[in-house]
């Protein structure tokens, strides 16, 4: 099944998995002083990997994009970044060899052994055979993006092939392929075996007498419109359910135009499941529908394959190919990134939700929607100043709030004094579990359960909201930067670091957001401390950057702050990759325990009674 998709590539080049390590490469983290390194730094490439052949999905894909957003390499080396863009990656689709060379020149391949020695050349580079032994990173998702023309070409190639092998017309080959849901092997096998039946089943009757045609039958009354006029043209497929041609056309028009169906439209008769064959459709579909009809037929190619999915972005016509199967979703969160820039989960099509696995996301979103009334009051955009009670509106992404009236400085999330955060830094990413005595009381229990949920929801929602505010802020800043450019003579390129910072903030907040949904379902074990520490580090880095980002435009243009922002940006991105790699590795190895079953459909366990929350620490 896989082999037919890309026969040129199949078997020639083994799955190539590579990883950029630019996250670690050039810039060193700036806020070292505020951040004791609690654990050895992981790189995006080095630490935990496993053998490519067994880990890689069995696809003939030859390209891999490392998938950490637009982050891991964006600030270290803008030139390399540009060269490495998805566009280049795509333009090399047809030439895998070039692709590899291009990648090699990027110098981003590393082995666990040599990652500490940056100047040691990658011995593997340029040697195609050694690609076979390339290691794979847990965060790496292999995928490939196809533009509409790529999809069309793949279909055309398949049609050509079947046309040659089976010696049937291209039109018939296309109909048969769709009938077999683009499973070339099965089609060829079945056709060789019993051609007559295959043609019949696909509606390709062989005798002229069986050709679908419009007929005028005396005494006929259409069961849909109840018309029975003389000369009324009617039509029926093999089942013999006959309707007038007007009704047939209106039925098809509705299916095609409104319901987006084409390849599997059933007979209009109540309870009849027979699919209207392509020949009949060609005969009945009116010219104004033809284009849409063919477009829909093309879509079946993507929709019939588990390894292909449409990019869910509204204006995007690309499809993404990925080998991650439904059953893998308890082990991996397959975020892919389309050429249009949209990053989404291949498993559930929802916007990128790493590190939380799909099932947790589904449960979390459902929970949030079910509890929306409770959640509503927290999600309000205003809070009272803890000191003077005047209402404060959050207008930027940063959590460091200063009351305009009394100048009281506090943390938006926990409402605690900000200066206390300054020394013990972030105390606010972790929910302090309640004592067992309190939990024994049934009433307290439900309160703890609610509070626990609200704790995580609050933080989840806060980052969701902050990401939006950061984006707004960037838009505003961008406008001012344009003005500033005019006045100060700074070039457009020179202000692009703000774009990178804004992107980093949004991507990192997106990740942070989901770490809280993840944490909500996470049962405590010896690994959760590391996770929480990573979460804290990322949160701190993000708040840091966010705060700088909110400085007045005049300040932003100063060289010192610019360098600072650039450093913080790459630090944020790095922290994010570290967090995600840790969660991805433990997920792949089954080391996390969740309060709920990751296999969908399992009953939801009340988190209060789950091991992670009732156990005392």
């Amino acid at each position, binding site marked *: 099944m896989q082999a037919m998709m890309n026969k040129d590539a199949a078997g020639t080049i083994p799955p190539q998995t590579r990883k950029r390590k630019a996250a670690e490469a050039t810039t060193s983290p700036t806020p070292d002083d505020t951040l004791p390194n609690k654990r050895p730094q992981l790189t995006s490439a080095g630490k935990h990997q496993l053998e490519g052949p067994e880990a890689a999905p069995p696809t003939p894909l030859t390209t891999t994009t490392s998938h950490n957003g637009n982050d891991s390499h964006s600030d270290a080396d803008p030139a390399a970044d540009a060269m490495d863009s998805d566009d280049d990656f795509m333009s090399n689709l047809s030439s895998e060899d070039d692709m590899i060379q291009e990648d090699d020149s990027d110098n981003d391949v590393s082995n666990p052994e040599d990652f500490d020695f940056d100047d040691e050349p990658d011995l593997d580079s340029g040697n195609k055979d050694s690609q076979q032994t390339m290691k794979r990173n847990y965060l790496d998702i292999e995928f490939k993006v196809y533009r509409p023309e790529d999809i069309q070409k793949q279909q055309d190639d398949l049609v050509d092939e079947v046309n040659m092998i089976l010696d049937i017309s291209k039109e018939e080959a296309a109909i048969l392929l769709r009938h077999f849901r683009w499973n070339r092997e099965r089609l060829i096998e079945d056709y060789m075996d019993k051609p007559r039946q295959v043609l019949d089943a696909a509606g390709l009757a062989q005798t002229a007498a069986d050709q679908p045609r419009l007929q005028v039958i005396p005494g006929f009354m259409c069961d*849909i419109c*109840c018309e029975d006029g003389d000369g009324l043209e009617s039509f029926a497929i093999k089942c013999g359910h006959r*309707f007038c041609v007007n009704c047939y056309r*209106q039925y098809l028009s509705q299916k095609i135009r409104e319901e987006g169906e084409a390849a599997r439209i*059933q007979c209009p008769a109540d309870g*009849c499941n027979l699919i209207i064959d392509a020949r009949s459709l060609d005969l009945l579909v009116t010219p104004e529908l033809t284009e849409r009809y063919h477009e829909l037929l093309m879509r079946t190619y993507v929709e019939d394959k588990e390894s292909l999915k449409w990019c869910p972005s509204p204006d995007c016509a690309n499809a993404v190919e990925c080998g991650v199967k439904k059953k893998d979703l308890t082990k991996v969160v397959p975020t892919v990134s389309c050429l249009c820039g949209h990053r989404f989960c291949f498993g559930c099509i929802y916007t990128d939700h790493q590190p939380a696995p799909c099932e947790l996301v*589904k449960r979390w979103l459902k929970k949030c929607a079910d509890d929306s009334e*409770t959640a509503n009051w927290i999600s309000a955009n205003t809070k009272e100043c803890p000191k003077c009670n005047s209402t404060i509106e959050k207008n930027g992404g940063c959590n460091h709030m200063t009351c305009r009236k009394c100048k009281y400085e506090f943390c938006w999330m926990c409402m605690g004094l900000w200066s206390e955060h300054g020394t013990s830094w972030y105390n606010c990413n972790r929910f302090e579990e309640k004592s067992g005595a309190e939990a024994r009381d049934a009433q307290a229990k439900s309160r703890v359960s609610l509070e626990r949920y609200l704790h995580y929801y609050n933080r989840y929602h806060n980052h969701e909201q902050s990401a939006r505010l950061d984006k707004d802020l960037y838009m505003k800043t961008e406008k001012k930067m344009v003005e500033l450019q005019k006045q100060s003579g700074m070039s457009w390129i020179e202000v692009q670091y703000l774009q990178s910072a804004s992107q980093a903030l949004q991507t990192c907040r997106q990740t942070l957001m989901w770490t809280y949904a993840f944490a909500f379902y996470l049962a405590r074990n010896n690994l959760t401390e590391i996770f929480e520490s990573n979460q804290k580090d990322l949160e701190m880095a993000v708040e840091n950057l966010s705060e700088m980002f909110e400085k007045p435009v005049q300040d932003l243009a100063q060289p010192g702050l610019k360098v600072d922002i650039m450093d913080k940006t790459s630090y944020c991105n790095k922290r994010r990759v570290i967090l995600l790699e840790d969660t991805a590795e433990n997920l792949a190895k089954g080391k996390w325990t969740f309060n709920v079953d990751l296999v969908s459909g399992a009953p939801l366990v009340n988190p209060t009674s789950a091991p992670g929350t009732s156990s005392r620490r």
Partner: protein
Amino acid sequence: MASTKRIAKEFADCTTAPPPGISITLPSDADLHTWHVTVTAPPNSVYAPGRFGLILKMPTDYPFKAPTINFTTRIYHPNITNDSLGNICLALLKSENWKPSSKIINVLEAVRNILVEPMPDDPLEQRIADEYKRDRAEFEKNARAYVERYAKGTVNFVQAPDPKDDKSKNNDKNSGAPAANPGRAAGRQGGSGSGSASRPAPPA
């Protein structure tokens, strides 16, 4: 319009030889697309001898699109929203199942059928469905209390004015449930999802 002839024929079929327990009137002779249907609960159902009002509407592109049905008489049933909207979940009416040659008479028979055999696995009211599965006696008690209160006497065909009214109903004493309070789930706090059709779609 193509649908007029068809609807007229269906109306004639349904009124000259009406299916058991079903009677149909037209609220306005000028509009064939809206029917008032009175369903008498089958004797072997828990809803007997209740009589229920339904409004059946056929869209302009009927029969290519399915008709819609709303209960105007309150009913305690897993597949019918327990509110003044009376939305009903019928497989037959879903766009993937509806065919232009499907007939109203079959729809009405299906409606009467789910009074005998609710489908708790495809519910609109999860709580009632759970009760139906777990505690049949309690369910029947509640269903009968509703019949007693709403489904006796003259059948009304007044449709709910505002879909939003569902939310406030918890506190609305006037539209409240019978004395036994079979209506809203008691003790539900924080407004979680016992409501009707407001369930969020999980990511696909």
